[in-house]
């Protein structure tokens, strides 16, 4: 069983995603914004982070940057209602997987499990190929 940190400000999304991941056998810890997410990352013990981009206090990208600056590194799936080309720092290697909302829960489960199995690359970033071909 792996531990997933879910950082998500949309309560309905947080509830559904945590249920989905728990049904797949993961333990899920939910935090409602980037500041609380960073605190959880500092505490450690997670195998993968699933975080929203636009959130109050710290957004998802700011949270990952701050964690990296403190030497905290773990696989990250970034989700957002905006397409990836609107995400600042998308070429900084801050996250390994990307999903644009609304997404099917199966896509998230697949991404999380591939990251847990050590997969890397652009194919983990849904929409990346379409965005970069523009």
């Amino acid at each position, binding site marked *: 069983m792996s531990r997933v940190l879910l950082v998500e*400000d*949309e*309560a*309905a*999304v*947080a*509830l559904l995603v945590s249920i989905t991941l728990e049904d797949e056998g993961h333990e899920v810890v*939910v935090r*409602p*914004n980037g500041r609380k997410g960073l605190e959880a990352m500092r505490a450690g013990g997670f195998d993968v982070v699933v975080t929203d*981009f*636009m*959130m*109050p*206090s710290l*957004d998802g990208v700011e949270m990952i940057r701050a964690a990296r600056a403190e030497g905290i590194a773990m696989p990250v799936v970034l989700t957002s*209602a*905006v*397409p990836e080309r*609107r995400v600042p720092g998308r070429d900084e290697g801050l996250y390994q997987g990307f999903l*644009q*909302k*609304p*997404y099917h829960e199966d896509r998230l489960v697949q991404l999380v499990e591939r990251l847990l199995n050590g997969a890397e690359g652009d194919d983990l970033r849904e929409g990346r190929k379409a965005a970069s071909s523009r």
Partner: protein
Amino acid sequence: MQRWACAARARRGRLRDTASGRSAANDDWSESINDAGRTDDDAGMHPEIAPIERMGTGVPQLDQILGGGLVRGSAYIVQGPPGAGKTIMANQICHERARRGEGALYLTLLAESFGRMFSHMNGFSFFEPAHIPDRVYYAGAYATIRDEGPDALIRLVSAELRKRRPALLVIDGLFAARDHAGGRDADAAFRAFVHEIGQQAALTETTILLLTNQSRASSSPEYTMVDGWIELQDELRAERALRTLIVHKQRGSAFLRGRHEYRIGEDGLTVFPRLETQASREPVPGTSDTRLPTGVDALDTMIGGGIPERSSSVVLGPTGSGKTTVAMQFLGECTPDERGLFFGFYETPDRLARKATSVGVDLDALRESGALEVVWQPPLENLIDDLGQRIVSAVRRTGARRVVIDGINALQRPLTFPGRIHSFLRALNDILKAEGATTIYTREVPQLFFPEALAVEELSGTIDNTIILHYTLDGNAVRRRISVLKIRDSDFDHISQEFEVTAEGIVLRDVSGHERLADTTTSATVVSPTSASAGGGRVR
């Protein structure tokens, strides 16, 4: 010290407006907002007191109702039932600020998905995904209010305003703050929350919209603590759904009170201020001594030389009596220097053109020469003030001096309160007269023969001239007659005349059956077997 801080922010705000090139806005009213965000109303205010600064909403005509737009640094409650359009309106204003180079923050306290909201908003023309996230930022704070209460939400809002410095903050789901205040002092905690939000708005010069679907008594404390209160209503009236907007409160502004209808279309909300609020309170110019030919020479003679310029007339009559024909002959006199407008509900432009040709008026030629514009509006579920505004806009756009509105019955249909037609027509007439237009309305009445009584009280005092068309029975023959009931401040022929609708238009006959013609040198009526000269748009 706080006052100095506010003044400094106000100066910053002005610089920001200038830098973003904010000038004209979305409607006529907003054009009077200058680059500093001040309105013409501020002229003459004490120079040591900072004037109110406003922001355009991007919601057509809403700024006019608000007295110039939202006030910067003020907190508003936007209240309405689910489906009324609060979220659409808030997004519309957010993207308007972004379009003008400012920032907006949309914070929801509802368990709602932005992904789905974006999908819904994507169908509206105002929604610009490229503004997200740099200019319009969306974030959720439901978990904060649920887990930590209103105080934590205030801290979060304060931090977000400092970090992002938006011109506009939307908090969607105001009463989540009340629901999660908890304990016996929930109301006190909620009041404190609303008060704190108002303080945040003033201190940061951020305009804050608090959206809620809860309808509480107007004496509820939250309404006294905010600077503005806008209500959206969505009601069923018989089988028809009707949306109306009411501004209950707008501190420091002369706003347009009462209900104003609005529509949600592909451009988002469009509000239609009641026409009565747009008519000048100054006396409008009276009718002039100049007479405009009606296009029916003998009728001109009956009414003393033509229709008084800048007057309003109604042509009443049962179905098929010739009302639209009279109106078309009036427009047949239009020229590119004396333009006309036909605003109709029943005849499509093609049918109208065919009908006009059959009575000797070449409508297509008039349109092609620029002398006439035809606007057709099906008599379906219209909004009365939308119709009024479209008529006024068309007259202003074309500079029309001859206007036909065919007919009043279709204007009455969308009225929620039928008695309003009187004040509506009064306002419409005053505006059209001020524009220099001479207007003929048609109105269908059920009576086939000369009526002993007419239920047209809506016209009393609002219409200058009344002409009635009716039928008579002559043995087995049905004949048409025309009678003049009123020409304001003018004498007229009180004897009704028989008329026929011919290929050259309306022809009046005297009792012997001869055609009645106007004597162009006197007001006397002469009898001749031949036709008089035709007007500018007549088929020759």
